[in-house]
């Protein structure tokens, strides 16, 4: 957005929201929402503690691994089911099922299959992020301009060439949109995994703080989490803008 001809950076509206938060907190409307300044103070206090650093490490590790798998599996699967009727008919119903399965319900099965460690948490994270990536890639591929596919084939593109040079790029705006949303969901996924499976990392902190009504600690962790989500989402939004030049002229 531009104000008086000056272009405001993307997330600068957060300052506005932070201000509202501070005001609400100061009014003491509810003890659940302490003023932002207090939260920041707490954050500065706790951020260097070993417990906090360990939680960040555990969370970041599970998150990054989960997103990695969601992306490298989700995009190819989405593209493949978008272009092939057979695969779509085979896989889409299951995508729908996993999509709508309450993950809490899958947790016991996951635990049985993968144990309680990092592995299950990573898988939960992946399960949160992957479906939107698959569905968006599929949607992107389904509206591909057929002439491009024909063109690539007529110039002798191998299936791999077609995949990387045509389908991927043609669907890229949708894929990036999907990855962006998937990544944000993964943030939630990693926390839910840490709450549902074994209580470690940020999940453990949330549980601890909210059980003990330590609201400013609670919000401090949330802020760190949101910062993570925002910076990733902004980075991906930047990539999206990089492809917007052709997104609307496909």
């Amino acid at each position, binding site marked *: 957005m531009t104000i008086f001809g000056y272009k405001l950076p993307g997330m600068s509206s957060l300052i506005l929201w932070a201000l509202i938060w501070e005001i609400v907190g100061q009014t003491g409307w509810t003890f659940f929402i302490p003023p932002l300044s207090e939260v920041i103070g707490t954050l500065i206090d706790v951020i260097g503690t070993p417990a906090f650093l360990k939680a960040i490490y555990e969370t970041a590790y599970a998150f990054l691994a989960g997103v990695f798998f969601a992306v490298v599996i989700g995009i190819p699967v989405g593209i493949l089911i978008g272009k092939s009727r057979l695969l779509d008919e085979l896989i889409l119903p299951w995508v729908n099922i996993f999509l709508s399965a309450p993950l809490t319900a899958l947790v016991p099965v996951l635990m049985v299959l993968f144990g309680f460690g990092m592995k299950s948490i990573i898988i939960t994270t992946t399960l949160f992020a992957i479906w939107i990536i698959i569905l968006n890639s599929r949607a992107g591929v389904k509206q591909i*301009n057929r*002439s*491009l596919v*024909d*063109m*690539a*084939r*007529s*110039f*002798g*593109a*191998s299936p791999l*060439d077609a995949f990387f*040079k*045509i389908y991927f*790029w*043609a669907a*890229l705006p949708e894929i990036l949109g999907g990855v962006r949303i998937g990544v944000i969901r993964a943030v939630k996924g990693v926390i839910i995994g840490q709450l549902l499976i074994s209580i470690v990392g940020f999940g453990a902190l949330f549980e601890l703080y909210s059980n003990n009504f330590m609201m400013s600690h609670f919000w401090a962790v949330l802020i760190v989490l949101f910062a993570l989500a925002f910076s990733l989402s902004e980075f991906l939004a930047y990539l999206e803008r990089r*492809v917007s*030049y*052709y997104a609307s*002229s*496909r």
Partner: protein
Amino acid sequence: MDTAVSVLNVTKNYGDVEALRDLSLDFPRGQLTSLLGPSGCGKTTLLKIIAGLLEPTAGNIEIDGKQITGPGEDRAFVFQDFALLPWANVLRNVSFGLELRGVAKSEREAIAEKYINNVGLTGFEKSYPHELSGGMRQRVGLARALSVDSKVLLLDEPFSAVDEQNRRKFQEDMLELVRNENKTFIFVTHSIEEAVYVSDQIAILLPRPSRVSEIIRPKGFRSAGVENIRRSKEYLDIVDQIWASLRNYVE
């Protein structure tokens, strides 16, 4: 006569729509054959079948006597709707055919550069398709097909959006390729004049379901030169003759 491409009893249905019915046609090597026919009669369909992009419902295609099973290096296609990669600039688009054939980057860009120059787009190498005019886009597609140097060229209304000046240049270039490099052209156009001027053989197609109704082999006009041909009586006669027969079939 040496046949480069033969279409043997090809039928093509799209669901209920019968586009081609039992169509057979030979394309002699080193010659230019034009396909003339009403809009929607199945010219693009036929070209795509020859290119190996569509499966015919019945019949088959032979190239050098061998039945085709799909697209091949021996054929290059110029698409009616250009089919440019919107995310790639002109240079990448033109060199894309070579890229798919595994030509090294520096080499394929040098070749692409040459063809970009040929179609008059020097200076636009870094532009993206959405920054080009219709005719410029069409020329990008043309340059891409020419750059892969295939033996058979399938051109689907390749000059429809370019100006007269460019069109004449491309016609000459095309004729030169036929003459000097023994390439086989299969050329779709709606301009009877153009067909008469450039073709060794003109196949007139019936409206859907399409078959070949007539094959005409105009000759001797090229030597006269573009400038004068329009005033030549034989030329005008043959144009009128084709026009008459096209109109007949349509009505």
